[in-house]
């Protein structure tokens, strides 16, 4: 039995310990917001936060997260009550087909929460592990820049 926290709640998984974290999240916990694009850690669509750090959930055996904290896109806002980062993606056009979006959001959220800045080059570097085929990245970068600025304006340094 593997016990860990998902989006703040205690969870346990009783299957084979080498089951991929993404499968446990999607199939056992019904958290289908986390997407699979390549299954080999290249595209970043399956990015979740593991103890706050962006991690490809397709490369992690569930046994390895025992006792750790996992956050998925479902931990952000809800429809009608989007988080400021999600709202920024919506207004800036950062989501098109949407399949890379949950991973992009989690990577960006880890940066913003850790007090990351609005420098465009640094944000491109941050997002380099998340592939998007629709946007050409500019609108995604703009969305993260705007979200960082909004957070600073709201006075939350962390």
């Amino acid at each position, binding site marked *: 039995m593997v016990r860990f926290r998902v989006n703040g709640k205690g969870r346990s998984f009783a299957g084979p310990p080498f089951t991929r974290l993404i499968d446990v999240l999607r199939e056992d916990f019904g958290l289908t917001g986390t997407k699979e694009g390549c299954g080999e850690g290249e595209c970043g669509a399956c990015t979740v936060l593991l103890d706050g750090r962006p991690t490809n959930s397709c490369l992690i055996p569930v046994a390895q997260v025992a006792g750790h904290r996992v956050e998925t896109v479902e931990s952000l806002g809800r429809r009608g009550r989007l988080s400021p980062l999600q709202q920024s993606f*919506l207004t800036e056009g950062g989501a*098109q087909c949407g*399949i890379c979006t949950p991973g992009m959001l989690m990577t960006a959220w880890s940066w913003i929460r850790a007090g990351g800045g609005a420098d465009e080059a640094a944000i491109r570097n941050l997002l380099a592990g998340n592939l998007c085929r629709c946007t050409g990245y500019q609108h995604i970068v703009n969305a993260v820049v705007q979200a960082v600025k909004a957070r600073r304006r709201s006075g939350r340094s962390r």
Partner: protein
Amino acid sequence: MGVNALRREGPEKLCGRARYIDDHNFPGCLHGVTLRSSIPHGRIQHISFDPRFPWEECVIATARDVPGGNHVALIEEDQPLLAEGRVRHVMEPILLVAHRFRPRAYEALRHIHVEYEELPPVLTVGDALRAETVLHPPDNVFKSFLIEKGDVTAGLAGADLVVAGEYRVPHQEQAYIENNGMAAYVEEDGTVVVLGSLQCPYYVHKALKHIFDLPDDKVRVVQTTTGGGFGGKEEYPSMIAGHAALLALKARRPVKMIYDRGEDMAATTKRHPAWIKHRTGVMRDGTLVAQDIEVVMDGGAYVTLSPVVLSRGTLHAGGPYACPNVRIRSRVVATTTPPNGAFRGFGAPQVLFAAELQMEKVAEKLGLDPVVLRRRNVFREGSVTATGQVLEESVGASTALERCARKSGYVRRRAAHVRWNRARRPTWRGIGLALCHHGAGFTGSGEAYLNSKAAVSLSRGGEVWVLAASTEIGQGTGTMLAQIVADTLRIPCEWVEVETPDTGKVPNSGPTVASRTCMIVGGLLERAARQLREEVIKRCGSFPRTRAGLRRAGRLLCGKGPPRRFEAEYQNPPEIRWDEAAYRGDAYGVYSYGAVAVDLEVDRLTFEVRVREVTAVSDIGKAINPRLAEGQIMGGTAQALGYALLENVVYENGFMTNSQLTNYIIPTALDTPPLKVEIVEKPYSRGPSGAKGVGELPMDVPAPAVAAAIRQATGHWIDVLPILPERILEAHLHGPVPRQR
């Protein structure tokens, strides 16, 4: 119109609530997998099943289980749903297995052994044209076209200068981030229902009717949220839908088939590789007098969409320039490789790479600035194309060219790069510019043949619905179509609902391809909404401005009945005349135009290319939603940069050896530079609010702009894509010493 309405399905995508096909749960469903050919060409001698495997756990389907025609019906019925006797490419589907657990289904495949009698493979266009092995009688040519205008021989003879060039462009993988996937079940009354990731519900519908020999109403196709298409989900979903439904029919349970990345890349369609030759005659002042162009494309093993891809390639091969004497000869040939198919641009990026790099060479030979050469010949109102089409309206080519040159600082940067390249720096720099036209919608006769329909309905509850088969695959279709309807009715966009593309609910609006959704389907919806508006005004005196008013209008129009539906059907504009046999006339109703400038630098030691900035200026008639249109332009441009510099499909003996995102490299946020976009609006009288097409245009000419910039930077003409560091190194070792221009 012209307002950045927010993407309507955006919130659910941002919350991870949008349901793509693999997010759907079907109780009791089986997982289907595909046994595929491991050789490029041969006869199936025997298929054996390892007796140690518990086959009773599986459902197996072969060609013999197909109730109707064993083809994926599209243009021709030559591609089998499951191979019968003969295989014509690696990864061709032979047999299907379904199991309760996906890993077990894959394991089952490892216990099936296929014996082949191998036949000679035809792996290259050269092999195909030699026709020693005939795949498509008599000469392996699926389709050919000839466009002739004026007298090319005389034109070349009378030219001050004739420039020859030869170009080669490779396969390209669409690389949508959501792999292909379908689910199917059969209802009690025998209706076959298929859900999945797709662009063209009615293409799948047509294919399934043929496979199962069923009437229209016994097949239902529903699009689920689709994670990108780019043409890659135009035709292949019909194959997967057929497979999933065949298994579901046999298993009497729902069946899900979700491809993994390796299977998706190795088995499904790619952009057609092409070989293009040019001979261009010009006068000393830069006036084009003759273009002699030959195009050969590799269609792969089956016809699929190749004739139409070749058609668009042929019609765009000369570039956006007026020339009195033109000959364009084109062929698409059969090889024993996986069929190539639709990919954003659809034949145009291939030929425009050649046409635009050819213009650079001509300019250099003449000692003219490439922008000046283009300015001298560019399409303007009244210009006549290679097919004899007079461009009557909405010709923004020269505006796009001039604004792009200005916005990118082309002249200034070109001069600055010459100075940079003379100094001892770690890099060479270059800037290149390219220009294109892109026909919006199907060809003149194509739209008439499609005869598309779209509708707007008003329910007794006052709900306004958009009913169209056009799919949202990331481009913003739903939002944009709702905006067109809302604006026509003069109500807020949020009051308009968009129906799911479901063949049980929406009329056949044609496929979501060819940059036609906004212009053609948007235009139909505008007409349908106008009918609704007129009817409401007739009944109520005026069109309501409140939701309560809409409800009253709904009750008045519908009584207790179902929603009142107003449908518009495509009518070929009388002034559009196209002679399909002679390939003369109005090839497309209208063209969009784009200019792009690429500024880059090349590392002098490693030959790595870093794109510093891209400027794209696009004449799309009217941006219904500028933010969405910008997203199309930026995304297409990035995809084209991948085509130009990174994306290299490697085939060995007909098998794609790099079918992973690990070794098939698409651009990341670091490979993609800041993108500057400007939209030019030269309205088209028949587009909704003047709109033309935008989806494919941005894919067309970043590649030749890159190659032109590489020329300035390194002194080398690289006529082959992708321009990998190895190619520049090779040119450097064997080619002329770089000239500093």
